[in-house]
């Protein structure tokens, strides 16, 4: 009933992939989650791996990701998505497994699991949504909240002297030998969405080749948590988040050395 | 064997206390008897106190942890101080002679001092002192068939030490002889 198909009069240019359920997203208007969900599921559909993909949802706004993604999914305890994903991948090594976590989940309560999952080079895709705030619980300070950022638990702005610094977990884990492909993307423009799609596609292809952990950070916005309109939030993200969390590849797979023959 | 036999092996870690107990337990098991082997366990690996309780029984064993023993095989002074009072009247205290300064004072138990370390050094391998003690104990209390002790030895000794089996057998026999000689003189 919510299925929208858009054509340009000649061909279909936009429709719901089969890998998404017919359920309206509950996410706030302007939030990046729904776009990331869609892009991820488009890739799963295009690669034809719906039957072989298992996702792990976190605790946070995307706790209900399994309501939208039309694949087998598990909902993990707070911070433990990558441990649960490890459990799944180890017993079903031929399946495609991804975890999907926010900043509080992945970079605060689940830091140990994040680092050790990547350090083991678990052959999974870890999707990390960084919007620098705890959205689900109502806008509290996150480990990735920027210096001076106002949240409900840093009402005078994040004071790094007292609360520590915004953590660049993606750069951190990129140091680990188990990390095969590490990139930071966003979904605020059509171009960015296309790049993210490429990143997810590459990650699943690497997983098929047993290359180790692919880690895709998506710098995203939280209009409700940031107390802004969607449009303001995009501008704020561009002006404040991107300088600190610059977009682009952080660790690329080593180039295959050309064959001697 | 009509009654369970309850033994404490005690000394320092590294003296082979736990394997003495295991060998008897293993041999008894081969004979179809009920056995339990309960070690003291803890952070001490070498040099700390170590002991194990072994029960060999014709019937199902109740508690593997007990406080009164039919026999005590003792390899250091603190263990003798601790376990001398725990031996049942009529029981056996068998100890390594050079490791004990203050001899047992009880006269309602059988006491046997074996110069196991001295004899082991004569064999150029002081690690087999425990086997000399074990041989002596088995002479005094033939709980299990000697052939099965040899079988147990193969099971308990790690593979990498199997070249030492002949030496261990020699030590066991030596212990038996010493105990026999003691029997004659007493």
């Amino acid at each position, binding site marked *: 009933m919510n299925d929208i198909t858009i054509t340009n009069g000649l061909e279909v240019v936009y429709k719901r992939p089969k890998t998404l359920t017919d359920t309206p997203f509950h996410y706030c208007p302007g939030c990046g989650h729904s776009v990331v969900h869609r892009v991820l599921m488009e890739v799963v559909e295009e690669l034809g791996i719906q*039957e072989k993909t298992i996702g792990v949802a976190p605790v946070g706004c995307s706790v209900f990701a399994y309501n939208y993604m039309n694949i087998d999914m598990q909902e993990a305890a707070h911070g433990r998505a990558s*441990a649960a994903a490890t*459990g799944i991948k180890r017993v079903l090594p031929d399946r495609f497994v991804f975890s999907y976590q926010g900043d509080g989940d992945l970079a605060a309560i689940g830091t140990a699991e994040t680092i050790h999952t990547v350090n083991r080079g678990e052959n999974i895709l870890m999707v990390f949504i960084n919007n620098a705030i705890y959205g689900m619980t109502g806008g509290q300070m996150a480990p990735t909240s920027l210096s001076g950022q106002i949240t409900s638990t840093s009402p005078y702005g994040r004071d790094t002297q007292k609360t520590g610094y915004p953590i660049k977990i993606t750069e951190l884990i990129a140091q680990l030998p188990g990390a095969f492909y590490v990139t930071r993307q966003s979904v605020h423009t059509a171009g960015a969405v296309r790049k993210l799609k490429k990143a997810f596609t590459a990650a699943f292809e690497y997983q098929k080749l047993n290359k180790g952990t692919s880690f895709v950070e998506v710098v995203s916005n939280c209009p409700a948590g940031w107390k802004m309109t969607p449009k303001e939030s995009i501008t704020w993200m561009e002006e404040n988040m991107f300088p600190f969390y610059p977009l682009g590849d952080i660790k690329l797979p080593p180039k295959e050395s050309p064959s001697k023959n | 064997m009509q009654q369970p036999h309850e033994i404490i092996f005690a000394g320092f870690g590294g003296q082979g206390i736990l394997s003495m107990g295991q060998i008897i337990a293993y041999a008894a098991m081969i004979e179809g008897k009920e056995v339990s082997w309960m070690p003291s366990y803890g952070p001490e690996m070498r040099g700390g106190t170590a002991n194990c309780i072994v029960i060999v029984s014709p019937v199902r064993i109740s508690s593997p942890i007990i406080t009164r023993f039919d026999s005590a095989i003792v390899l250091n002074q603190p263990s003798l101080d601790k376990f001398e009072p725990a031996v049942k009247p009529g029981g056996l205290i068998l100890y390594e002679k050079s490791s004990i300064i203050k001899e047992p004072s009880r006269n309602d138990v059988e006491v046997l001092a074996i110069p196991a370390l001295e004899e082991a050094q004569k064999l150029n391998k002081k690690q087999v002192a425990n086997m000399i003690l074990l041989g002596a104990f088995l002479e005094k209390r033939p709980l299990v068939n000697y052939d099965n002790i040899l079988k147990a030895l193969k099971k308990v000794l790690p593979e990498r030490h199997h070249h030492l089996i002949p030496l261990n057998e020699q030590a066991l026999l030596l212990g038996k002889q010493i105990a026999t000689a003691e029997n004659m003189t007493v």
Partner: protein
Amino acid sequence: MESKAIEKEARLMKGNEALAEAAIRAKIDAYFGYPITPQSEILEYFSREMPNRGGIVLQAESEVASINMIYGAAGAGARVMTSSSGPGISLMQEGLSYIASAQLPCLVVNVSRGGPGLGTIQPSQGDYLQATKGGGHGDYHVIVLAPASVQEMADFVFDAFRLAEKYRNPAMILTDGALGQMMEKVILPEEGSLPKKTPEWATTGKPKWRERNIITSLFIQPEEMEKINLALQKKYELLKQEVRYEEFQTSDAEVVLVAFGLSARICQKVVELGREKGIRIGLTRPITLYPFPEKIINRLAKKIDFFLVVEMNAGQMLEDVKLSVNGICPVHFKGRMGGMIPSPEEVLEEVEMLLEKHSISHDMEVK
């Protein structure tokens, strides 16, 4: 003298190793764990054996990670287990609550040590309440089996998986450091004799012919959450048919000891010693701690003078015994804590002291 058959089948093994070997014979798909005394032999045994015999063994970064790997793998339909001791089991409680709510079968082994806190590595039964009353948040229970011998350390691995898979519920083997470290004769269950099939609810990848499978413990509508709770409670009611216990010389007993695990072994000795002295004493040993054998305790209460509950804790199973007895007869308690083990002699002394007290009060009633 030597029996060929016994030599072939029987092995002398440590409790921890017998348990691990039984798990391999139960064809577990994976073990996730973290070292902690006095159970590290379990992880070591798997690390040594599984590369040659199949199955996954993974040393996780913490018990928190272990239990969540269990969640993931059990949700994916695998037969999985972890093991730890008190401090690590405490860390697993969050995960266990999720596993119970998502109704996933798995085995958790607690080789208990003395607490609270970092405590001691010596054996204890101080985790009884944590094990039997849920342990984590919410209304749930774990099936709890308490072995009292090396043989049962092995056998209960099979029983635990059988129950866990039948009821889609986590099962726990609650044992202690002494049973883990001691060696006894054990005849191991036959390899591969526990049937296994991938459950239809598992997240193995969604084929076209079925709807997607979801493993979750999140039911945000209270009406739905209550339904889940009602279903769980119904399951726990059903579980009562799985109650197991063992009795020693209770038929003519005036005094009955109640003890589980290692304490029950000690109490068997107390019964032996007491009977030698002419005391009409028996022992009831709960084998399933959850579900608890309340009926047999209640039945005995009507015909004996009193119970003496013996535990290596401050009186935890005591609460379940008292609830089962429901005031019908006196229930006394003898316990040691912090890794201390009650000796058969001191328990017998307690029995004799209580007998004297009871006979005095009985005399006074007569007068």
